[in-house]
C-alpha cells in the first residue's frame, strides 16, 4: 500500500469541507441569533420572572462546554426517537451555544442605549413595541455590530468541535486526510490556514466597525 501525499486533490477536499464549516456557522448564527434575540429581550424586560429565566439560561449555556451541549443534543435527539443526521445535532447545538452568548452580548447593547431614549420615546406616547421598533433597536443594532461579528469568529472556530461527533467539516476533513496521508503537520497547518483565512477578515471587520462606532459616538 502506498500512502497518499497531501496534494491538490486533498486540498480540494479541505476546501469542500470548509463549505460545511461555513454552512454550520450560518445555521448557528441564524437560529442562535433568533433564540438569542428573544432571550436578550427577556433579559432586559420589566418582568422579574422573565429576567431571572433569561439570566439562568445565559449562565447555564456559558457555564458548560460546547462539547457537552453537542453530546447532550446528539444523544438527547436519538433518545427522543429521532434518527437524524449529525448535521441536525451539530446545527442545533451550535445554535444553542451561540444563543447563550449572543443574548448576553445583545443585552449589553440594549442597555447601552441611553435611558433618556426610553423616556423620550415614552413621552411621545409610543407603545413598548414601538419604542423597541423605532427607537431602541435601531441604536442597539448599531452598537451590537462589532461584538456580534467578533463573536461570529468564535462560532466559526467552535464548529470544529462538531468533528468529535463525526460531522465532516473542516477539522474532521483534516483528520480524515491525515489518516490517509500521515502528514499531520502539513495537513493541520493547512487546516489552520483555511480557518485563519475565514476568521481573520471577520476579526478585522469587527475591529473596523468598532473604530467607526467610536468615531460616531464621540461627535
Amino acid at each position, binding site marked *: 500500500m502506498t500512502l497518499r501525499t497531501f496534494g491538490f486533490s486533498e486540498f480540494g477536499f479541505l476546501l469542500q469541507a470548509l463549505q460545511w464549516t461555513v454552512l454550520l456557522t450560518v445555521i448557528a448564527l441564524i437560529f442562535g441569533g433568533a433564540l438569542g434575540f428573544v432571550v436578550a429581550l427577556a433579559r432586559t424586560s420589566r418582568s422579574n420572572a422573565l429576567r431571572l429565566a433569561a439570566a439562568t439560561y445565559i449562565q447555564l449555556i456559558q457555564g458548560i462546554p460546547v462539547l457537552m451541549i453537542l453530546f447532550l443534543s446528539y444523544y438527547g435527539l436519538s433518545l427522543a426517537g429521532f434518527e437524524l443526521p449529525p448535521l441536525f445535532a451539530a446545527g442545533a447545538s451550535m445554535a444553542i451555544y451561540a444563543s447563550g452568548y449572543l443574548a448576553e452580548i445583545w443585552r449589553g447593547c440594549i442597555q447601552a442605549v441611553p435611558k433618556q431614549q426610553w423616556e423620550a420615546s415614552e413621552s411621545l406616547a409610543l407603545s413598548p413595541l414601538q419604542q423597541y421598533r423605532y427607537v431602541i433597536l435601531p441604536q442597539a443594532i448599531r452598537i451590537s455590530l462589532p461584538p456580534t461579528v467578533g463573536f461570529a469568529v468564535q462560532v466559526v472556530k467552535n464548529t470544529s468541535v462538531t468533528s468529535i461527533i463525526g460531522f465532516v467539516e473542516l477539522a474532521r476533513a483534516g483528520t480524515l486526510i*491525515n489518516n490517509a496521508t500521515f502528514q*499531520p503537520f502539513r495537513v493541520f497547518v493547512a487546516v489552520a490556514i483555511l480557518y485563519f483565512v475565514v476568521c481573520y477578515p471577520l476579526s478585522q471587520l469587527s475591529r473596523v466597525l468598532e473604530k467607526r462606532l467610536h468615531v460616531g459616538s464621540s461627535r
Partner: protein
Amino acid sequence: MSYTFQFGALLPYKADILAGIWLTLKLSFISILLGGLAGAVLASLRSTSGRAVRLVIDAYVEIIRNTPFLVQLFIVYFGLPGLGFRVGADTAALIGMTINLTAYSTEIIRAGIEAIHKSQIEAGEALGFTRFQILRHVIIVPAVGKVYPALCSQFVLMMLASSICSAISTPELAAAAAFVESQTYRSFEVYILVTLIYLTLALVLRGALALLGLWLFGRRAVRRPLAAMPEVSA
C-alpha cells in the same frame, strides 16, 4: 418516549470521573497561571519594545485567536512528533491550552495597558520611580486590574474548552465521560452528570477568581481616585 434514567449505573465509575475532574482542574490551574503570566509579560514587552517585537507578538496573537483550539491541539499532538518533539497527551493538552490562553490574555492585558493614561507614567517618573517600578506599579498592575473581569471570563472559557482535549485522548473530565459512556451505554446519564460537574466547576472558578480579584485589586481600586486627587487640584 419511555426512557428510564439510571444514574445508579454510573456509581462504579466514580473513581474515573473523579480522576477526570482532577486532571481538568490541574490542566486549567497550570494553564491559567502560565497563560496569565505570559500574557502579562508579552503585553508589557509589546508596549515597551520596538516594531519588530511588536509585529511578532501581534502575529502570534492573531494566529492563535483566529484558528480553532482543536486544530492547535492537533498540531501540537500530531504535528510536533513529525518535527522531532514527541509529547504525551497530557503535556500536549497543557502546551495547547497555555499557548491558546497566552494569546488571549496578551490581547486583553494589552487593551488594559493602552487604557493607562500617559500622565500616570509621567507622574511615576516625576516621583522618581525606576523604569521597572513604573512598569510594575503604574502600568501592569493597574492595567490587569482594569481588565480583570474580561481576563476571568477568558480563564473560565479555557477551563470549559479543556474538554476539547479529550479529542487527543487526554484523560480529563470529558474523556472520562466518554469512557464511562462506552462502558455503561448510559450516554444521557453520563453527559448530564458531567455537564452539571462542568457547570459547578465554572461557577466555583468564577467565584474564586472574583475573590482573588477583590484581594488583589479591591483596595487598590478604592484608593486609586484618592491618589489621583492632588494631581487634579494642582
